[in-house]
Structure formats: structure tokens, C-alpha cells
């Protein structure tokens, strides 16, 4: 008998809904924030948003708890105790800004390079970078150097785009999707959404990953590869495809530099460079006219193989021939690599056969006419429905740049770039290959304060673009764009503190950090980093890094190590811009950018970092931030800048609603109502491409003309895939002593070895130096889908899901080592040891252990109980990762990719052994608890959130 109970089924638990952009991770989903009496009550996905289309991940839904976290800093702080003590005094903003201005002004007047300004997961890089240009320091970068610069750089050099923000699979049409080294972080909602759709459509998903979690778990096929050997796997696929003639020759000769002739003159200064005509055009051999012609001409039949004689008598061969020779080598045959990669030769061969079948037997054709760069109209758009996506598992290895290039080249060989069913660029990509943008900041002598000539981060195409002194030594504090890391397109944030503490290449005055937990999970080798931050001069007792300014919204592990804290707001309290000038939120068929706006006002003495930076710029009198009369250029702070700043005439941070009437897209005068229009539109603007612009963007006249019009590109030329990457050969020639550039002795052999213009696979450097019997296992980390970096641990909801981490060991391997589920084990690398509790699992490569990243916390950090499981049972693998490689030839190289400087934290090699009975139960190393900083409140014991503000404690 059911008695009807009257319940309220239409409660209205909100009085307002505001749209903005999520910042619980880097995905930039659109969200709707429900508010009641000014309190955030509910956050859900925005159905109209191009990124997430209404869905929202666990982090996004837990935004409320982030926003109301008791770890939020409450006012500016000035350190009063020794560094690391957590002893601070609260400051008024005016005092804090005055102090920061004094410090920064002094440094700028003496030598601007002595400011190292590094921002972490910063989504306002077009502002922060611009500020650093105006300040005049060459020492600026964000976190890309330890994130995924290999992926970005290899893609940009090779195909003018890459994965994630640069491009993605054609989810609607692809039939075969390969996922390399992807844990669950980047592009997380879009990927999940599309994987669900692929499953629904029955497209095959293959995941190549040492660990079978998340996406790998739902893949049709999981290949538990040995870390750092993906390049061998891809090389074996290429071997099979070439051997069987399953490459798209037509596509290659149209869109890649396959036919470009490479000079074969081993003794000469130009060996390995492209043969060029008098106008610097690369040459091909035209089989119709039987002569050398500019490779850029549309109507030739260029030879892809053969040996040809240049006018000066030197020999030259097409790049494709060199590439084929490289990969037809039996060393790359499936049978040769299978044992090393941990995947059977049979499987490798089958995957190659499946790729060939899907690409060439299941070609698709859409009724879309398009016109190519040479003006030829194609009635249909055809595509080879194989697509790929790769991320950090590939890039965070010292062989990552080459492996990433191999993946892109595999796509090119199959003819799947920007076609239906293949990989597709997102505007403003693709860009010219190799990229035209060069790093700025090269200095001769110490010039006084003046702006840099251009952006800090760029893409060198030869030794002449490096930021080095005549002796070959580095000019940047992180040694980016030096011989240590010539193609360091995102800088090397992970080396800054180490280098600064050693005054190598020079000491600095001010370390200015934003949103990067460098004293904990964002650094390799945490203990040394803390030592570097607290190191003093033996004579003076002064800190070696004299001043540290830090902006963070929360009481992270890094706060106690800074001198001046400029507290930031939460993401719901600020303006922000996901700009076309940086990395926007475009989709393959549309160009989009987005904003954040304050949906609630801060209740603490905190200010958005971008406002603070603009104000500091004005106070310092930086050009572009202050007018001639000394007044601020943007008195309204960041929103003022977003609307009124123009990078070039008509081009500003936002593309939508430009022009005085708000009707222009892309280029137009600043519109004072631009931000209001964005807010009305759900905080994003989406410009849809026309049908004829959608595919083959690298060679699509209509798209490229549009890109030029929008200022995304300088010229509307065809973008040519660089199978053979000539710039690398230029570095190699220099290392061989050819040409004017001095390569310091210790770098010569390294550059010669790794700067191969064709992709190679080489053993990860740590494995080569400290692998073998002593350290038989790989150790890698992944980021859990419900937790992003360290931000999550303060979150009352997310920390329940991941309050600690385990070390996962292959069940069979664990048994052999006498390790049972729940045992505490020592993980020892050449650098150090950490103790963690083990869990056995089947879904992990036999030679690999792994854990979730950034769960372990310092006791007391993030305003958690010092006995929190994060601190007692959670651990970081960072403790056993060194920022430097073991010594070789009297020099310790950075533990990074030798080409890009990407931190090679997935190269880690370890051994494991069971801890003694008396050692069970707690992690090691243990750190002194972090004192609760001034102004921070004791967190409430219980949280019973019901749309009111959670109890604030005392």
C-alpha cells in the first residue's frame, strides 16, 4: 500500500544563474553557476558550449568546495620567520604592492634579466608573457616544459599543429582511433565524450599505455607497452606499412616534403640540408620534365626516390627515400622490437594491417567541395578514417620529441592529416612548418630596461636563433634555447630554481612565481628544491635567491618558501581570457575563445593576479602598461586590458564582438561592450568555418586566406609536412664543427647524436645511465580523472575520492618479488628512495610500477590536518626523480629531452623491495608539518553544505 507523501518536486534552490568557464583543470569547459543570495549553490556544464556541450567532470562539479576551501589565502603576506617556517605577517595591499614595485623596479634598473618570472598552469600567458616582454627580462615561461612541450613542439615543427588545443580526431567519422600515453587529464571531457560516441558507433579504439586505467580500460585493445618504447612501436608500424606499400604516395608528394632533395655530401658544410634554388626554394626532381624544379610548384611529378645530381655536381636524394631507408631497417621490424616494447610481433603486425585496411580499404568521401592552395577545386573531400591522440606518456621522456614526430609522421604516411576521419586542426592552426616565430630576448651585454623585441618563446630553426653568448653559454636562467635545450619552445621551468641557486648561468634577484607548486609536486627532486630555496651565501648569510614573490590562491607547499605573497582569487571571482593569442578553445569546425568573469565577489583581501600584474606594470612604468604621463594604461585592470589592448591594429585578446558596433569578428576596433556580449553569449564566442574551409586546412586556400585575414598567419601558403626536419640537421652540422656557431665541448656529441633530421628511437637517457640490473623497473605517474594536480586535496569532496595513493605493481612481478597487496615497499632510484604502500594489479606492464600524481602532501599544507592521509600515506614520486642526469663526461645534463628540454620525469628507473615489519604503515620521506599561515582559519570539522556558505571554523 503506497501512501502518497507530499514532497516538493520543483524546488528553486537558486535565484540566479551565471555562465563562466571552468578552471578546475586545463580543459576550459563552459559552466553554469547557480547562485542563491550570492552563494554558489550548484555548478553544471553549459549545454551550448563548444568544449563540453553540457557534461562536466567530477572536478568541475566539485568547484564549490574549491571556491569555499579553507585553504584560501585571505590577505597579502610578508614573511617574518626564516623561509619555510610559514611565519608571516598580514599586509595591506598598498604595502604589498609598494614592496613588490620596489623590488621589481630595483632589479629592472640594475639588470632586468635578474627577474625570473615563471607562471604555472597559467591561462593568461598572452598577458603574463606580454608583461615580461615589457619588463625586459628574457626569463619568462609557463609550465609547458614539464608538461607536454615535446608533443607541442614536435607537432608544430612537423605538421604545424598537434593534439589537444591544436587539433583532434575527426570524432564523427573516424573508424580507428589510437590513443598513445594518455592518462586522464588533458582534454578530459571532450575525450570522454567522444570515446563514448566512438563506442556507440563501433569504431575501434586502441590504447597504447603501460597502465590500463580510465580510457585504456574501455579501449577495444589495450597494449601495455614498456614506458619510453612507444617510438619503437610506431617505428615498427611504419616499417610494416612501408614494406607492404601501404603508404599514401599521392598525399605525401602533395602535402609533405617527401620529394625535397637532401644534399648528400658527407664532407661538405651543407650535408643533409635541402638543395635549394637561387630563390631559396627547395628542389625536387620533376619526372615529367626530367629536371630539378622548385618543390613548391603545383604542377610537377616529383620523384620520391632516386639519386639526383645537383647543378654543382653534388648528389641529392628525396627526403622520402631517406625516411624509407631509416624505417625499412630490420632494426625496426616487429620481430626485432617486440621483446623490448613488451608487445608481441604478431600484435604489432596485426595493428599495422588494421591501420592499412582502415586507411586504404575504408576510405570515406564527403560531398564537400574545396579548393587547394594552387586553386584547384576538388569536388569531394576524401579521407582515411584513422586517427590518433597522444599526450604526456609520450612527451615526458627524453626521447619524446622524436617519438611525437614519429606519431605525426605515421599519420602523414597514412594520409590522415586534416581529412575526414583523420586528425583535424583547430583554428588558428595549422601554422607554418617549421614555425616562423623565433625566441626573443637575445642580448649582447647587460642592456638596461627596455622591452624585448618579441615573445620569449619561439621555435629556433638553426643555431643562429639560440639565446646564447658568443662562447655558447646560455642566456636564459632556465637555459632554454641554449645548447642544453635548443628547441625549448616552452622554456624549462623545472630548472629555474636549481640554476638560480647555483648562479648558473648567473644569479638572480627576484624569483616571481604564479600558480606553480614548485616547492612540492611541480619540481623534480623536492628536497633539493627546498634546499635551493633556503640556501644562503656562506659569507653574508643572505638567501642565494634573494627575493621570492609568489601568487597563489591557496596555502600550497610553496607559500612558506616565498617572501611576499600576493593572494589570488578563486576562478569564480575573476576575469580571465582564453585567447586566440594563446591557446583558445577552438574546435576543428569553428574558432572559439572564451572568458571568465567574476560570478561572485571575493570576501577576502585577495585580488586577481592579472589585475595585480597590470597594476605592477603601471607602477613600474612599463611601456604598454603606463602612459607617457605616468598614468596606468589600463586603469580598469584586466577587463580593461581584455577590451582595449591591441596586439596589432584591430587584433586583441578576444575575437568576438569587435568593432565599435560589436559586429566584427577577429579584426576590429575595441568594443567597450565586448565583455557584456560575451557574458550574454555564455562567456564564449564561436565562429563557424564554412564547409569549404573545414578540411585539408594545411592546403586549403579558403581557410588559409581566412587565417591571414584574421591575423593567425602571415602568409596563406601551403603548409608542408616536415618528414625530414632540416633545422635539426643545422644543429648537427654545427656540432660537427661546420659553420660559425660555437658548440660548447660537452654538448657536441649529444647534439650530433640526437639532432637527427629523421625520427629515431633511442633509449631514454636515465635508462641508459642508470637502468639495468640495479634499477630494473620503470616508474611513471598518471593524474586521476577526479583530481587535478595538488589543487584537489583541499577539496572536501575530491579528497575523499583520492585522499592517498598506492604504488601499483604488476601482480605477477609482485609475486616474484615477494610483495603482497598492502605491503609497504621501498622504491629506490639512482637518486633516492620513497616508501609507499603497494597494490597489485594485472593491468600494468610487467616492468612498470605507477601511481597517481600529486596526491601526497606535506603535513599541514593546504590547511589540512597534519595527520591527513595525504601526508601520512600519500607520497610523491618526485622525491626520487632527479632534475639532473647522472654525471657523464664530467657534466650533469638536465634530466630532459636533449632537443626541447622537456622534463623527462617518465624516464624514471627504480627497484622495489619490501619494507621491514617495523617500517610498515607510513610513508617516507617525511617533512616537518607546515604551520598554518597568518590569516588562515582552522577548517570546520564537518561540512554540511546545503547551498549556504560552509561554516568557516575559527
Amino acid at each position, binding site marked *: 500500500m503506497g501512501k502518497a507523501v507530499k514532497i516538493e518536486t520543483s524546488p528553486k534552490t537558486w535565484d540566479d544563474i551565471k555562465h563562466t568557464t571552468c578552471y578546475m583543470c586545463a580543459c576550459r569547459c563552459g559552466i553554469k553557476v547557480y547562485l542563491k543570495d550570492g552563494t554558489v549553490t550548484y555548478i553544471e556544464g553549459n549545454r551550448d558550449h563548444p568544449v563540453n556541450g553540457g557534461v562536466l567532470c567530477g572536478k568541475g562539479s566539485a568547484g564549490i568546495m574549491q571556491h569555499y576551501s579553507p585553504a584560501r589565502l585571505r590577505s597579502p603576506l610578508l614573511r617574518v620567520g626564516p623561509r619555510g617556517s610559514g611565519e608571516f605577517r598580514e599586509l595591506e595591499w598598498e604595502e604589498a604592492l609598494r614592496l613588490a614595485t620596489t623590488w621589481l623596479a630595483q632589479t629592472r634598473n640594475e639588470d632586468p634579466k635578474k627577474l625570473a618570472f615563471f607562471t604555472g598552469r597559467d591561462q593568461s600567458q598572452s598577458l603574463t608573457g606580454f608583461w615580461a616582454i615589457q619588463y625586459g627580462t628574457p626569463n619568462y615561461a609557463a609550465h609547458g616544459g614539464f608538461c607536454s612541450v615535446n608533443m607541442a613542439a614536435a607537432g608544430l615543427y612537423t605538421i604545424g599543429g598537434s593534439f589537444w588545443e591544436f587539433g583532434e580526431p575527426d570524432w564523427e567519422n573516424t573508424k580507428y582511433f589510437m590513443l598513445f600515453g594518455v592518462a586522464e587529464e588533458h582534454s578530459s571531457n571532450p575525450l570522454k565524450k567522444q570515446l563514448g560516441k566512438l563506442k556507440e558507433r563501433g569504431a575501434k579504439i586502441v590504447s597504447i599505455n603501460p597502465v590500463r586505467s580510465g580510457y585504456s580500460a574501455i579501449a577495444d585493445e589495450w597494449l601495455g607497452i614498456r614506458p619510453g618504447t612507444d617510438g619503437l612501436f610506431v617505428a615498427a608500424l611504419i616499417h610494416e606499412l612501408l614494406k607492404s606499400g601501404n603508404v599514401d604516395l599521392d598525399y605525401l608528394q602533395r602535402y609533405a616534403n617527401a620529394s625535397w632533395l637532401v644534399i648528400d655530401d658527407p664532407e661538405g658544410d651543407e650535408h643533409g640540408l635541402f638543395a635549394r634554388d637561387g630563390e631559396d626554394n627547395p628542389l625536387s626532381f620533376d619526372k615529367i620534365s626530367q629536371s630539378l624544379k622548385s618543390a613548391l610548384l603545383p604542377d610537377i611529378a616529383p620523384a620520391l626516390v632516386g639519386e639526383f645530381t645537383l647543378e654543382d655536381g653534388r648528389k641529392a636524394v628525396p627526403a622520402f627515400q631517406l625516411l624509407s631507408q631509416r624505417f625499412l631497417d630490420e632494426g625496426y621490424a616487429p620481430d626485432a622490437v617486440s621483446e623490448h616494447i613488451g608487445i608481441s610481433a604478431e600484435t604489432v603486425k596485426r595493428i599495422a594491417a588494421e591501420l592499412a585496411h582502415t586507411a586504404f580499404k575504408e576510405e570515406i568521401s564527403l560531398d564537400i567541395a574545396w579548393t587547394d592552395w594552387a586553386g584547384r577545386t576538388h569536388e569531394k573531400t576524401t579521407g582515411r578514417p584513422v586517427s590518433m591522440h597522444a599526450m604526456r606518456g609520450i612527451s615526458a621522456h627524453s626521447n619524446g620529441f622524436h617519438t611525437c614526430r614519429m606519431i605525426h609522421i605515421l599519420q602523414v604516411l597514412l594520409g590522415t592529416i586534416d581529412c575526414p576521419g583523420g586528425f583535424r586542426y583547430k583554428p588558428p592552426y595549422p601554422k607554418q612548418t617549421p614555425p616562423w616565430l623565433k625566441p626573443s630576448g637575445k642580448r649582447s651585454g647587460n642592456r638596461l630596461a627596455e622591452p624585448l623585441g618579441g615573445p620569449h618563446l619561439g621555435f629556433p630553426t638553426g643555431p643562429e636563433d639560440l639565446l646564447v653568448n658568443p662562447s655558447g653559454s646560455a642566456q636564459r636562467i632556465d637555459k632554454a634555447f641554449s645548447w642544453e635545450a635548443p628547441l625549448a619552445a616552452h622554456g624549462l621551468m623545472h630548472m629555474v630554481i636549481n640554476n638560480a641557486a647555483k648562479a648558473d648561468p648567473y644569479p638572480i634577484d627576484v624569483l616571481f612565481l604564479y600558480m606553480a607548486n614548485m616547492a612540492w609536486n611541480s619540481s623534480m627532486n623536492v628536497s633539493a628544491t627546498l634546499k635551493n630555496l633556503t640556501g644562503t651565501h656562506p659569507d653574508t648569510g643572505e638567501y642565494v635567491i634573494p627575493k621570492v614573490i609568489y601568487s597563489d590562491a591557496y596555502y600550497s607547499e610553496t607559500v612558506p618558501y616565498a617572501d611576499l605573497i600576493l593572494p589570488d582569487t578563486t576562478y569564480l571571482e575573476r576575469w580571465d581570457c582564453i585567447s586566440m593569442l594563446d591557446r583558445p578553445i577552438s574546435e576543428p569546425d569553428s574558432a572559439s575563445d572564451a572568458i571568465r568573469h567574476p560570478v561572485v565577489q571575493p570576501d577576502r583581501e585577495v585580488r586577481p593576479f592579472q589585475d595585480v600584474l597590470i597594476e605592477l606594470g603601471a607602477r613600474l612604468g612599463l611601456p604598454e602598461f603606463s602612459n607617457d604621463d605616468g598614468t596606468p594604461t589600463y586603469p580598469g585592470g584586466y577587463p580593461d586590458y581584455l577590451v582595449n589592448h591591441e596586439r596589432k591594429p584591430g587584433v586583441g585578446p578576444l575575437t568576438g564582438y569587435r568593432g565599435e558596433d560589436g559586429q566584427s569578428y577577429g579584426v576590429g576596433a575595441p568594443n567597450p561592450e565586448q565583455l557584456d556580449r560575451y557574458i550574454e553569449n555564455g562567456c564564449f564566442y564561436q565562429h563557424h568555418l564554412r564547409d569549404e574551409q573545414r578540411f585539408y586546412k594545411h592546403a586549403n586556400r579558403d581557410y588559409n586566406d581566412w587565417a591571414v585575414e584574421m591575423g593567425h598567419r602571415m602568409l596563406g601558403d601551403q603548409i608542408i609536412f616536415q618528414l625530414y626536419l632540416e633545422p635539426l640537421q643545422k644543429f648537427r652540422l654545427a656540432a660537427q664543427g661546420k659553420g660559425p656557431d660555437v658548440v660548447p665541448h660537452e654538448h657536441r656529441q649529444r647534439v650530433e647524436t640526437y639532432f637527427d633530421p629523421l625520427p629515431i628511437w633511442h633509449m631514454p637517457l636515465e635508462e641508459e645511465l642508470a637502468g639495468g640490473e640495479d634499477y630494473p623497473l620503470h616508474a611513471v605517474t598518471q593524474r586521476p580523472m577526479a583530481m587535478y594536480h595538488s589543487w584537489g586535496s583541499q577539496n572536501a569532496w575530491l579528497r*575523499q*575520492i*583520492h*585522499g*592517498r595513493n598506492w604504488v601499483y605493481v604488476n601482480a605477477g612481478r609482485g609475486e616474484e618479488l615477494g610483495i603482497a597487496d598492502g605491503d609497504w615497499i621501498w622504491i629506490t632510484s639512482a637518486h633516492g628512495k620513497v616508501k609507499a604502500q603497494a*597494490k597489485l*594489479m594485472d*593491468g600494468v606492464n610487467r616492468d612498470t610500477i605507477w601511481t597517481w600524481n600529486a596526491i601526497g602532501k606535506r603535513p599541514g599544507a593546504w590547511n589540512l590536518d597534519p595527520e591527513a*592521509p595525504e601526508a601520512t600515506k600519500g607520497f610523491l614520486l618526485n622525491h626520487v626523480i632527479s632534475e639532473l642526469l647522472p654525471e657523464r663526461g664530467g657534466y650533469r645534463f638536465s634530466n630532459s629531452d636533449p632537443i626541447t628540454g622537456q622534463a623527462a620525469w617518465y624516464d624514471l628507473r627504480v627497484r622495489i623491495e619490501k619494507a621491514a615489519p617495523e617500517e610498515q604503515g607510513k610513508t617516507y620521506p617525511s617533512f616537518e608539518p607546515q604551520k598554518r599561515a597568518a590569516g588562515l582559519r582552522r577548517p570546520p570539522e564537518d561540512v554540511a553544505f546545503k547551498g549556504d556558505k560552509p561554516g568557516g571554523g575559527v
Partner: protein
Amino acid sequence: MHPAYSVILFTTASGAGYGLLALLGLGAALDVEFPQTYWFPLVALGLALGLITVGLLSSTFHLGHPERAWRAFSQWRSSWLSREGVAAVATYIPAGLFGLMWLGDWDGTMTWQSLGVLSAIGAAVTVWCTGMIYGSLTTIRQWNHPLVTPVYMVLAVSTGASLFCPLMAAFGAVQPWHIVMAAGAMGGAILMKCVYWWSIDREPRVLTIEAATGLGRRGVVRQLEAPHTQENFVQREMGYSIGRKHAKKLRAVCLVGGFGLATSLQALALLAQGPLQTGLLAASIAPAAVGVIVERWLFFAQAQHVVTLFYGKHFA
């Protein structure tokens, strides 16, 4: 299952109280020669109703809202817990009247005897309901067993009898058959408990993690990750388990040091007389109490809830 002390105290104390009440009520109906002093009903019925009341009160300790406990009388049509509440409260009426009549020298009357019978029935129904609260739960194999409710009944009688005999003896009114009955009930409890344990140890454990998740046709299932890294309510409430060895020891304590010792003391009392007999019978209360408390603790601790399968236990 988590052995909550309030529930253990409730079921054992009220069990003994109802047992004693039932014996007194039945005794009245069967013309047992009770001591001719109002002290006896005062002490004996007082003890019975006291134990019942303490037990019932303690059972409200584990409620989230004890002040709403009255609501529990409403769902007697479907809920054994509600039935238990109704029966428990209803039993106070005949038991109270029974006591008042006894104290008012109306004992021996037909009405008094009828109230005794009604009290006994009430006690039996209440204990039966208590047993059925557990016995009806199909989620716990060790509880959803035909012997669970009978064991509750027989333990109520035997612990009640363990109180009844020394009380009678203290007033000089104990008869050997009373002791035989008490020892017999305790012996019955031992026997039933042995059969019960033997049975739950041997029963095929048909429910597995594979069956629970439905993933069994795909192979052996093991939990890699629980939903959260700290234990949740379900794990804390339902996930309690004790080792086989530990359980075996406690079973021995229950049977030998508890019920066995109590029966032995009662058997010895049959041979003794006077204060010694009273002393022996009184001494049997402690082991009987130990036995029933350990029994009840094990009843919870050894009960494995089906939900533990989702949390990684292989069998339930």
C-alpha cells in the same frame, strides 16, 4: 556486521528479561509455588522488567533520532522491527498488571494466571520479533538461517532461567526441576548454537563477487579500487569481519567458559543445598551473561553482508 554495543546490550538484556518474565508468567499459570512474600515479585518482576527496559532504552542509543522512536510502532504490517516495538510495549500491559496483582495479593486468581500467560506470550512474541529482524534479512547469510530466531528464543529462556533459579533459591523456593529446566535450556542453547555454527560454516557460499557484479561470465573478479580511499559508512557498518582463528577462540569462550560453565554450575547446584546451592546458582549468572554477550557479539561479527562483495570480499 559491526557489533554495536548498544544492540548487543539491548538484545541480551531484554532477552534475559523477557525470558524471566515468561518463566514467571508461565510459572503462575502452572501453579508453581512462588515464595510467599511480596519481595519476590518485586525483585523478580522488577528485574525482568528492569532488564527489558534497560535493553529497550539502550536500543534507542543507536538511533539517529531517539525522540522519533514512537514512530516505529506504525509499520507492524511489514516491519519486524516495528512489530518488535509494538510487542515490546504491548507486553508491558499484561506484565504490569500481572505484577500489580501479585503485589496486591491477587496472585493465584484466574485473572492473574491469565495475565501471566499473556505476559509470557508477549515476551515470546517480542523475542521472536527480535530474532526475525535478523532472521528475515536475506542480505546476510549467517542471519537468514532457520535457527537464528529459535536461538534467540532459547537463549532468552535459558538466560531468564539462569536468573529465575538463583532468585527462587534465594527465597528458598527453588525446586530441582527448576534447575533441570534451566540447565536443560542452556544445554539446548549449546546444542542449537553448535548446530548453527556447524551449519553456517558448511553452507555453500553461493554468492560471490562475480555474481554480485554480474561480471562473472567474464572471469574472476577482484576489486582494484574502492570508491573512496577512506572507508565509508557501508564499509564501517557492514564491512566488519574477524579472523577465523579469533572467531574459533571466541566460540570456545562462549560455549565452554560461558554456557558450559553456567550449565555445570547449575548441575552442581542440583547436588547442593541451602546457601551453597543458592551460591552456585547465583554464580552461574556471570558465565551465562558472558556466554550470551560473546554469542551476540559473534552473531554480528561473523555475519557477512552481501554488500561486502562489491567492496572486494570474494564470498558472502
